[in-house]
């Protein structure tokens, strides 16, 4: 596997190597998998992978912010964001 960044391409190659599907099938499989994750998150449903981590959809309250360029005070509307909390196992692996 190539050194550096892991992208959809390298993940597809891993499926190709380990499970033997054709390369373009693998790309489609990665996309289907990611689509499934996205639609869960868009439904406000968090995703938990044991031994990897949890993708959480979190509600952020509105708050007062400032435009850093003009210094103007603005109200930031309530919004949602996705955060990732790595599992203990992944944190340990990364620090090995």
């Amino acid at each position, binding site marked *: 596997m190539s*050194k*550096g*960044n*892991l*992208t*959809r391409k*390298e*993940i597809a190659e*891993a*499926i190709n190597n*380990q*499970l033997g599907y054709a390369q373009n099938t693998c790309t489609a*499989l*990665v996309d*289907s*998998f*990611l*689509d*499934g*994750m*996205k639609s*869960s*998150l*868009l439904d*406000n*449903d*968090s*995703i*938990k*992978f*044991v*031994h*990897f*981590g949890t*993708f959480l*959809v979190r509600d952020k309250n509105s708050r007062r912010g400032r435009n850093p360029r003009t210094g103007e005070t603005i109200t930031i509307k*309530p*919004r*949602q*964001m*996705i*955060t*990732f909390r*790595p599992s203990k196992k*992944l*944190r340990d*692996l*990364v*620090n*090995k």
Partner: protein
Amino acid sequence: MNKSELIESLSEKINISHREAAAITNTIIDSMAKALTRGENIEIRGFGSFVIKDYNSYEGRNPKSGKKIKVKPKKLPFFKVGKDLRERVNKGK
């Protein structure tokens, strides 16, 4: 949602067996975990990216006892959600 529910929905959506969907899901998560373990970053367009952040040692406090402790330097995977997904999550409300 947990992994087995995601596997179930993948197998239904693209009409493959549960076993195949499980093998695919595990391979994807495994390749991501391995990349992070090697210190590589992950960049998935339309979804987000993971970078390994280095943290220096710092003086922390035990939140329960209030005692000062020294936190050793550590690395943590940090996920940054992609612009497209970030915007779509917000429109949901």
